[in-house]
């Protein structure tokens, strides 16, 4: 129990920033550049860690609560979700709801912290963030229902358990569809192209980045680290679905999982390189479309 907990935390806390490096390297390769080193995210975090803070006079304690919740929620959520074939250290009937709602909590405080600055740009970002997330929420639920239907349980350990490899046979079409849907959710929730551009330089066009404009120093580091953790935690849903095998030994399981995460990072990098950003008004349509696809996938197994 304690061993699994430590292994989980170790995998998460150590390897999450690496994924950002892989994404950036992939994008650089596509752009014909050398790109920043793989470990750049770690150096960024170390640099921010040593810096001081600057606060706007408009802000209150809520502004600091944003980074705190944004960092702690992915850590707690990670304890509920299996990393590949490594089962989650904490598991109970219905933990999938808690998993979804924990991210809701982090969204609440991130958006509130953005509004705390009184800046209209950050208000704009907060409004977009809550809008897109609440449209993505039904898709997650449809996918979880589908997985629950296939597994017969209500905990993430059961949902993403060893039966998954066998389920790909009879329910392959449904699983394939929700794999795509969950990938879209990962892209939306982690503010990736085509929904949001983490590297854009114009405040008006940002979604997530504009919300954290006024954060500084270690608090900004907490946000960066938190979003890396979130990418890994949500990505592990996709990775487990795509690579549903058990090897039987924890070390090989962990390696398969990490390999899957790296592949996912490369995939995200490729998507970011070959796609343009969607127009803002197209994003809700895309998300509603994703929900419809996931309903279709669900109907295939519910009938």
């Amino acid at each position, binding site marked *: 129990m304690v061993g699994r907990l430590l292994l989980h935390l170790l995998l998460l806390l150590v390897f999450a920033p690496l994924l950002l490096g892989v994404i950036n390297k992939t994008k650089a390769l596509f752009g014909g550049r050398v790109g920043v080193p793989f470990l750049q995210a770690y150096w960024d975090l170390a640099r921010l860690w040593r810096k001081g803070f600057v606060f706007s006079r408009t802000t209150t304690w809520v502004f600091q609560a944003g980074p705190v919740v944004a*960092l702690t929620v992915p850590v707690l959520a990670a304890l509920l979700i299996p990393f590949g074939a490594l089962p989650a250290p904490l598991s109970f009937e*219905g933990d999938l709801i808690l998993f979804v*709602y924990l991210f809701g909590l982090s969204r609440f405080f991130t958006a509130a912290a953005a*509004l705390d600055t*009184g800046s209209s740009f950050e208000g704009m970002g907060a409004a977009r963030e809550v*809008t897109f997330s609440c449209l993505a929420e039904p898709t997650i639920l449809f996918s979880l*229902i589908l997985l*629950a239907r296939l597994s017969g349980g209500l905990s993430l350990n059961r949902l993403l358990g060893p039966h998954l490899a066998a389920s790909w046979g009879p329910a392959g079409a449904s699983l394939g569809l929700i794999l795509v849907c969950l990938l879209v959710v990962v892209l939306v929730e982690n503010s990736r192209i085509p929904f949001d551009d983490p590297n854009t330089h114009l405040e008006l066009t940002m979604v997530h980045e504009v919300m954290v404009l006024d954060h500084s120093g270690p608090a900004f580091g907490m946000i960066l680290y938190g979003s890396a953790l979130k990418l890994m935690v949500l990505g592990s849903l996709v990775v487990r679905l795509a690579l549903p095998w058990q090897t039987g030994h924890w070390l090989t399981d962990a390696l398969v999982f990490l390999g899957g995460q790296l592949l996912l990072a490369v995939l995200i990098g490729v998507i970011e390189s070959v796609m343009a950003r969607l127009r803002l008004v197209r994003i809700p349509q895309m998300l509603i479309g994703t929900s419809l696809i996931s309903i279709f996938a669900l109907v295939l197994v519910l009938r």
Partner: protein
Amino acid sequence: MLWVLAAAALIALSGVPGLFRPNRGGGERLACALVLLGAVCGVAGVAGRLLGRGVESVTHSWSIPGGEFALRLDPLSAVFLLPLLLVAACGSVFGLGYWPQREHPRNGRKFRLFFGLIAAAIIVLLTARNSLLFLMAWEVMALSSYFLITTEGEKGEARRAGFIYLIATHTGTLALFAMFAVLAQISGSFHFPAAQTVAGGGTVIFLLALFGFGLKAGLMPLHIWLPGAHAAAPSHASALLSGVMIKTGIYGLVRVTSFFADIPPWWGWTVLLLGALSGIFGVAFALAQHDIKRLLAYHSVENIGIIALGLGLALLGRSFNLPALTLLGIAGALLHVVNHGLFKSLLFLSAGSMIHATGSREIDHYGGLLKRQPWTGLMFLCGAVAISGLPPFNGFASEWLIYLGAFGAQQGDALTLRLAVLAAPALALIGGLALACFVKVFGIAFLGEARSAAAEQAHEAPLSMRLAMLPLLAGCVWIGLLPTTVAPLLQQAAIDWSPSCVAARLSAPLAPLVWVGGMGWGLLLIVAMTWWWLRRRTRGAPDTVATWGCGFVRPGVRMQYTASSFADFLVGLFRFGLRTERHGGEVAELFPKPGHFHSETPDSVLDRLLYPAFRRTALVFIWLRARVQNGQVAIYLLYVAVTLFVLLRLVVF
């Protein structure tokens, strides 16, 4: 039971001494003390009864034919009674600061009289076991709430809201009269039948109950009276109306459905669909509001929808004989009744504190209140997190139970049952929208810079108002972190509703509640640790610079995002149902002149459907009257002659 009766008497009479003391404070402290004493009596009585002490029922003969003064206190009633007593007590303490006699000499005494009366009427209503007694309490409650809504009767808005409420509630009561008459025909007496004893004849009763009780609860197409009424009443009355009074509709539905032995699946489906409709559109309408109390009122519609989702799942569970589903559905619905009573009252009271400080109900007139009202802000934030159903507060526990019920439904054999799993994504959408809405309210009202002079000079609420919010917050935290402590009560109440739930007791579907509480503690712990570390690091950090304005040198407070602009994207997605009206805001020439923009979202059912329909009907009748009563004497003589002829014909032949 006797303690509860004493509580009802004390609370009912709380406003009476004030009537005889017009000049000496109107007896406001005495009224408050009586309500508090009554609440303590009531809680003691309910707690004693739950522990198995005291008498369970009181029966007295009554001179009204068919009537009997029959009261009984079972765990199902207790679930509804406990939040009532708490909210009534908190509301009356809040009133000392919010609605003091010296500031409201004209209506303060009237308000306290009806505040006590309505609370006492609900106590009787929740324990009544005889249809006539129930209806009598129902009417006292309906009329008292009319007087609470029209407390400020000199304002046209309050009179209009009160009038709509009066029409709505009496239409509902009419349906209930019919419903109880039919029930008496089937069961043989006006006494409430025991659970699951009535066989057959349910369709008419169910439809009438759904209409009558749904009108009170505010299920979506029937919610017409709710937004106006909650907005017009003083905040602590809104807390009682929204937190407790509308739940009597849910209580009625729950009680009436418990009588029947077999439940056809379409009952569950009807309640489920109405619940999803109320939930999604309730919160969509809430997003489009900029009056804080109307917004909170639409959230009551949303939460009633969530409760209905739970009830619908439980009904389906009974139709298909799945005790676990029944238990999860009804336990979730009942827990959400309690939770909504707690956090909605907390939100209404803290909204009252904002209104008290700024004199406005417009969210866009607040801004930056957290600096001036730190306590109110904290209370509102906790209420907002709780109502969005987020851990670690109580809203999560009840929504979690309903989710579990919905997920359980997909393991059923029949496809009609399996489709009920779609309640889960509906609930997720409701949750996401509610979160967006409360980020909006909290962010626009409490964060940023003050948007008006009044908000700049706002002051923290007096001690009595702050103290009144504390027990409600404590309730939210308690149920969120220790949900297992209420599980036995929920289980008892579920068995009251449907004895078949006993079968689910052994498998204990409520057991994972331990984990929900535990994870809440874990979350609080690591957030507190990180928070503590961050606060230590930030000590002495400069906090005098301006927010980054993207290079703009003179940012003004009016450039902040407003409530309407925050919600605009989402409201636009729901424009097929909301039909928000926009006035002005067009930019015409190269050098535009100062312009105005105004948007409002009238209620689709009331303002777009019922009003025009009634107005047209009225026009038809006016036209008819003009034809019939046209002022020509000859025609009037003809009427007299025709009438005489008809009478003659009737008498002679």
